[in-house]
C-alpha cells in the first residue's frame, strides 16, 4: 500500500476522506494490508484515549470474516441453543431441551 492510500486511510480515521479516495482505497489489491494498518491505528487511538492496550481488547474480525465466508460454523449454531424437544406435541405441554451444537 503506497503512502497516498495510507494517507486516505488516515483521513478515514478522522472522517475526512472523500468518496472517490475511499473507493480507490477499498479497491486496493491487498485488503488485508488495509485492514492491518487500520487496526494498528485504531489500537493507537484506543491507547491514547482509553489507555487500553491491544492485549486488553478483543479481536473478532477474523472470526466474523470466517463465518461470513462460510469457512467456519456460524456461532448461532455453535452456541448453546434451546430447541423444541423432538418428542413434544400431541397436546403435551411444550418442553425445551438444551442442545449443545458443536
Amino acid at each position, binding site marked *: 500500500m503506497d503512502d497516498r492510500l495510507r494517507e486516505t486511510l*488516515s483521513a478515514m480515521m478522522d472522517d475526512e476522506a472523500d468518496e472517490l479516495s475511499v473507493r480507490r482505497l477499498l479497491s486496493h489489491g491487498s485488503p488485508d494490508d488495509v485492514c492491518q494498518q487500520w487496526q494498528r491505528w485504531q*489500537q*493507537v487511538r484506543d491507547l491514547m484515549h482509553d489507555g487500553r*492496550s491491544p*492485549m486488553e481488547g478483543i479481536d473478532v474480525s477474523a472470526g466474523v470474516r470466517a*463465518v*461470513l*465466508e462460510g469457512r467456519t460454523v456460524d456461532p448461532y449454531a455453535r452456541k448453546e441453543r434451546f430447541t423444541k424437544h423432538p418428542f413434544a406435541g400431541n397436546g403435551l405441554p411444550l418442553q425445551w431441551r438444551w442442545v449443545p451444537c458443536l
Partner: protein
Amino acid sequence: MTQTNLMQASQLAVKTGKSGTPSMTSDKDQQLGKRSDSQTDSQLVRKVRNDDRAAFDLLVVKYQSRVASIISRYVYDSQEVMDLTQETFIKAYRAMERFRGDSAFYTWLYRIAVNTAKNYLESRSRRPQGSADVVDAENFDDGRQLRDLASPERLLHRDELQQALSQAIAGLPEELRSAFLLREYDGLSYEDIARILECPIGTVRSRIFRARDAVDRHIGPLLNES
C-alpha cells in the same frame, strides 16, 4: 509524559497556535467536528451494501471494542462477551440491507448489541438445571482468562506502551504534533486545524498522516507483541 500531560500539551498547542484564538474548542466547533462523525461509516456501509466485505472488516475493527464494552455490561463471562460481539457483527452484516440510515451506523449497531446480549440472557434464564455443569465448566475456564488479563505482565505491557506512546508523540516535529493532538484530543476537523495552524487543509491531512505513521513505527514492535 502522562496521558493528562498529553492532553495539556494539546490544549497548549491550541492556545499557542499562530492565530492565538483561544476559543477553538468551543461547543460550536466540537459540534462541527461531531457532525461529520459518521461520514466514514456511511461510506463504508454503502460499500458493504455493494457486497464489499473489506469495508465491513474495517467497521468490525473500528467498533469491536465498543461493542464488546456494551455487551460486557450485560454479560460478565469474557468468552461469552467475545462470542456475542462476533454474533452482533454477523447479525449486523446480514441485516445491513434493512439499515435505512435514519440513525448513525453506530447507534444501529449498539441496538443490535444490546438486543443480542438481552436475548442471550433470556435464553440462559430458561436453561434447564441439567446444564449447570456445562455452565460451571465455562465459568471456570473464563475465570482463568480474567486472571490472565489482569496479570502483572499485561499491566507492565500497558505501561510500556503508554510510555512508548508518550515518547513517540513527544519526539514528533512540532508541526506534526500540533496537528495530530488537535485532531486526537480536541476532535477538531481538518478545516478548523488548518485555520488554527494557518496552513492548507491538505497540509493538515498530510501532517496528521505523517504523525500517525511515525507513532505507529515507534510503538509498532510493542503492539506486535500483543
